[in-house]
């Protein structure tokens, strides 16, 4: 891992003089350390894997791709500086950041520079700010939260829900979005619990959830905190359905929480356990290469280079502005671009649309129970 990064840096340095001829560099400004380390490393490995494949098949429009990885330390200020630095060299695209706060702090920069920014951020407001250069790789909370609310109403049949969220850009945004959706469906929020990023002790939170008398618990935390919450919930014998959105059913949480993750249910925007051969294949390739099972951020990182490839080939040139224009309204299908894994469409704001899944964790494995169709067929 370390070596490959070093090799990559050396390669990019060595390639600089010749860069104009036969390769293009795409900077990844992502969370390689700090609170977002899991997320960032999944993305990094996913995008590296895709680029190796693309390069082996001749690159994009005849040019090889070189990825450059810059750590934001999960800090928006650093992300901003890193994007500024990357933009000085006028790349055709920028990948990342994944944390919504960091995306929010940087999207104006890429819009001003007219460089497409392929992000991992899921906050509802990112695509609502008028940038023509921002593209999601997964559902925004504006898309996923209505699905969760429907699930709570129709499948779980909950009349009241306790919400446990992590007080950072990710959790706070999700909490605001789900609150709105629950209210419009007449579901009561029995508890509204803010927790800390990096919080270790969830005893008090679980007790509050138990005391709230809610029919179900919506858990919206980052990976580690999700695992700690599940472990504590099991320890205290919390017997209400635990409902989550993508993260809670992710592989990392299952690995960390062990048996405590069994029985967790919810909506998954992207998963390597989807009943789709292309995705399962990707999961196997990833695991063979990096010795662990990727989560949805691995998939997000993996499709990003393929988005650039499809858009650049449609536009016929490797130019940021043209790539962005080509991506708007573009539907990429796996029969033309296998690396996209599932058919996906980007609208004029950069929002992504594709099928998603209802799932639950059984015996330490994520099991898909239902496939939800695309919003617009």
């Amino acid at each position, binding site marked *: 891992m370390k070596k490959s990064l070093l090799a990559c840096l050396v390669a990019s340095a060595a390639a600089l003089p010749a860069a104009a001829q036969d390769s293009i560099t795409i900077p990844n400004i992502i969370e390689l350390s700090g609170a977002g380390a899991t997320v960032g490393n999944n993305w990094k490995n996913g995008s590296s894997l895709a680029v190796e494949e693309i390069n082996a098949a001749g690159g994009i429009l005849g040019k090889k791709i070189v990825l450059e990885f810059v750590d934001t330390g999960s800090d928006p200020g650093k992300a901003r500086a890193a994007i500024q630095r990357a933009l000085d060299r006028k790349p055709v695209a920028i990948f990342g950041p994944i944390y919504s706060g960091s995306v929010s702090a940087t999207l104006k920069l890429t819009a001003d520079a007219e460089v497409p920014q392929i992000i991992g951020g899921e906050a509802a407001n990112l695509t609502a700010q008028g940038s023509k250069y921002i593209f999601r790789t997964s559902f925004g909370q504006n898309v996923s939260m209505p699905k969760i609310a429907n699930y709570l109403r129709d499948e779980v049949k909950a009349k009241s829900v306790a919400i446990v969220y992590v007080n950072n850009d990710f959790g706070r945004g999700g909490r605001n979005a789900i609150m709105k959706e629950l209210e419009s469906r007449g579901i009561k929020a029995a508890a509204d619990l803010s927790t800390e990023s990096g919080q270790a002790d969830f005893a008090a939170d679980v007790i509050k959830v138990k005391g709230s008398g809610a029919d179900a618990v919506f858990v919206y935390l980052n990976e580690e905190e999700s695992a700690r919450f599940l472990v504590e919930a099991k320890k205290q014998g919390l017997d209400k359905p635990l409902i989550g959105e993508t993260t809670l059913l992710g592989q990392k949480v299952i690995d*960390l929480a062990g048996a405590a993750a069994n029985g967790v249910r919810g909506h998954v925007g992207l998963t390597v356990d989807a009943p789709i051969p292309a995705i399962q294949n990707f999961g196997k390739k990833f695991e063979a290469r990096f010795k662990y099972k990727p989560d949805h951020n691995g998939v997000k990182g993996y499709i990003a280079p393929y988005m650039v490839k499809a858009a650049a080939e449609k536009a016929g040139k490797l130019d940021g502005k043209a790539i962005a224009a080509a991506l708007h309204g573009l539907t990429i299908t796996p029969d033309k671009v296998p690396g996209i894994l599932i058919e996906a469409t980007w609208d004029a704001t950069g929002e992504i649309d594709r099928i998603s899944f209802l799932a639950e964790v059984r015996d330490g494995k994520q099991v898909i129970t239902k496939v939800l169709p695309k919003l617009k067929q």
Partner: protein
Amino acid sequence: MADFLQLLIAGLATGAIYALAAIGFTLLWQTSQTINFAQGEFVMLPAFFALVAMHWFGLPFWLSALIAIGCAVILLGLVFKLVIVDPLIRQGVLPLVISTIAVGLLLKDGAKEAYSAEAHRFPSIFPDRLVDVLGVKISLAQLGVLAVALAAIAALQWFLAATSTGRQMQATAQNPGVARILGVRVERMVMLTFVLNAALAAVASLLISPIYLVKFSNGETLGLAAFVAAIVGGFNQVRGAIAGGLLVGVIDNLAGAYSGLIGVSSSYRQAVPLALLVLVILFRPQGLLGRREERSV
């Protein structure tokens, strides 16, 4: 009421772990005026030693746990004393304090680079079962943590009070000059406190890691809690650190559950132990159980 009892036990269990870390903190302060800002990292690291033993060398858990304690005693006790504290104390307290901040950084980033930036599972010594005590569901794991931590504290108290070495250590802590005149081998006693501190930190690490998961950044929370516990309880008293640790653990849990009752949002939960710290500094700077310290400048 059942909730309250459950919170109390959860609070005591984490509090007992804070106490283990806080005791070492006060021991170092007493014997060598070291404020160890790396104390949290001292609790974070031993779990990594155990993980390395298990996953890199394939050793069983019990052996790995022993190795973790051994490595901690050597690296965080002996080496820390000889390589960091001894050369730096000669430069004064401020350079030493600042160096411990740097040691904390070094251990934190070292663990991240050498092992990984992600969180890892850690096996629990205790079974993952619930028992019913007077209608309150209590986890065996929690009771086990509490029992082991309290046993370690009791053993330490006994050692300090009832053995000759322990009494020599106390004499060294109270007044090294007089202790030396009385024939105490002060240097050895000081070294012993560093070893004890490392061992206590390692025990705390093994107890807390199944709950907190093993992560390089765990020291931040743990260090702060131990720090607050030590000051609140009394910086110069072992029993102060114990009381402080338990108090901080319980207050943190109660604040998490009941802060709404006094009109404070749970998003300010972290502020509650710190408010306690500030109140103690304002009204009882020697700590709840501490004694006044008369030191020349």
